[in-house]
């Protein structure tokens, strides 16, 4: 039986810049930063969730040939890299305001939906990120009539 997810991966275009963003701005912490010769194995976690590592991967040889690495970089920079992260937060609006103030690029302001309050942003390279604050109590999918009444 599979037990849990321990690592997930995202392509970045510069690992130092990725650290500035994921650690310096979002408040994650470095789990592993290891020069293993052919690549730099760099993972970060949330302070309260050390068992789920986000690996910040720089595409390049020998894993990807030069042309492929270039194609991946082009796709990431147009928002089509395929990676992305959704974080749960206990304060969507506060987090949004704090990160706006330090120049993070938001693509959607905090918005109330039936599944909570969420907002959207991009990392410096183009990867999509969301912060979702779940509603208090269970998520209830509204009926069409309730949706119309809300709108």
């Amino acid at each position, binding site marked *: 039986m599979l037990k849990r997810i321990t690592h997930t991966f995202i392509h970045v275009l510069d690992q130092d810049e990725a650290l500035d963003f994921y650690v310096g701005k979002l408040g994650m912490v470095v789990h592993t930063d290891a020069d293993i010769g052919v690549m730099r194995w760099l993972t970060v976690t949330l302070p309260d969730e050390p068992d789920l590592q986000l690996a910040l991967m720089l595409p390049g040889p020998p894993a990807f040939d030069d042309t492929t690495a270039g194609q991946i970089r082009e796709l990431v920079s147009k928002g089509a890299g395929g990676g992305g992260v959704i974080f749960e937060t206990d304060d969507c609006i506060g987090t949004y305001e704090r990160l706006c103030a330090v120049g993070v690029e938001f*693509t959607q302001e905090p918005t109330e939906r039936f599944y909570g309050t*969420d907002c959207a942003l991009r990392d410096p390279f*183009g990867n999509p990120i969301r912060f979702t604050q779940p509603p208090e109590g269970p998520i209830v999918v509204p009926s*069409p009539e309730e949706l*119309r009444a809300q709108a």
Partner: protein
Amino acid sequence: MRSARGRPNLTDAYLGLPYAWEMLRGIEERNRRMLRARDAMDRAFAQPLDIPALARVAHSSPAHFSRQFRAVFGETPHRYLQRRRVERAMELLRETERPVTEICFDVGFNSLGTFSRTFSEIVGESPSSYRVRFADGGGALRVPACWAMAWMRPAG
């Protein structure tokens, strides 16, 4: 094989091309600027966006912007914005009872005629006909807006 700071571990064969790395960085930088303009359309579709305003977001000249955007995303920014506004209108038609005339302005069109014509051309039927047909077919779609915006913007 340690790479120079900021440069990925691309091999000598690749970097041996005299301007390959600079060219790639140029493409990435252009893509990122165009993505910023596309994000602005997704975020502010209800506002009176025009090509000069979007070109400013993309740090491009109005003359070059549309061509560059199309090279990156396969359609002109004008068309992208039309489809975004129509997609948002489709949601409001499905999930609210707001009059068509109000939805037209809600999503950024400034004339009912342009809205109806653009909607019909893209969706294949008028806004009111779409609303009736959707209501007959089973009511509202209860999906997150981010999902709807990514996957329900009409193609074609």
